[in-house]
């Protein structure tokens, strides 16, 4: 499913301006420990986390993730936004919990 459709269905906020939202979402991964994300998330996954700092963007770049979705209403700071824009990483947000979003995403992708 295209990222744009996921954004629409889950009513997600898009933080990055030059959003590359035409890409395919291959699945999801939820976690806040960066090494686990690097080890277990697959390319094209939507990563759901409450971590909101610049290193998160680097992980998404290296692991080739479709986007980073900040749960629980977490907001990216200026440095994170800058790095995401430079690295062409899509940053998304939701006021819902990681549990809630994961459930909805799974239903959307597999239902």
């Amino acid at each position, binding site marked *: 499913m295209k990222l744009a459709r996921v954004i629409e269905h889950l009513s997600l906020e898009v933080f990055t301006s030059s959003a590359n939202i035409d890409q395919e979402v291959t699945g999801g991964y939820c976690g*806040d*420990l*960066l090494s686990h994300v690097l080890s277990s998330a697959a*390319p094209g996954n939507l990563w759901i986390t409450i971590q909101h700092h610049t290193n998160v963007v680097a*992980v998404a770049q*290296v*692991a*080739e993730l479709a986007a980073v979705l900040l749960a629980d209403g977490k907001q990216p700071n200026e440095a994170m936004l800058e790095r995401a824009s430079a690295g062409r990483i899509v940053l998304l947000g939701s006021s819902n919990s990681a549990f809630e979003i994961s459930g909805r995403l799974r239903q959307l992708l597999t239902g």
Partner: protein
Amino acid sequence: MKHTIRAGDVAHGGSASARIKMELIQAGVDATTARRAGIVAFEGEMNLIVYSDNGGTISVAVKPHAVVIDVVDTGPGIEDIDLAMTPGYSTAPDWATDLGFGAGMGLINMQKHSDRFEIHSQIGTGTAIQCWIERKGDWAMKRQEAS
């Protein structure tokens, strides 16, 4: 390609790895190998930032059949490598774990994404890690072209 990493420079953590991955793609390395190399470099880079006394270097060499990554620092050194390689074991300070580091998976991830992994460390001298990542995707492509 040699990248110098400063100790404690968490704000730039991962920048060198993202750059290394891009440089590998530009050098004609296949996407799967570049991704594995990126993960190895990221874990090495964060180890230098979080644990090293004086920072260190990440050197990347593109060989015909492999990408070789060397991560070298000048201390403090690892007292017990087997313990450091135990999943979940970490000596990360609180500020690092708050950011999602210190899962005790860094060295293991480096080993997992390498085809050959060597680590040497001495207290007071430093740590040197060498990872060979075979360019399997490139071989497959070459075989396909040949057939």
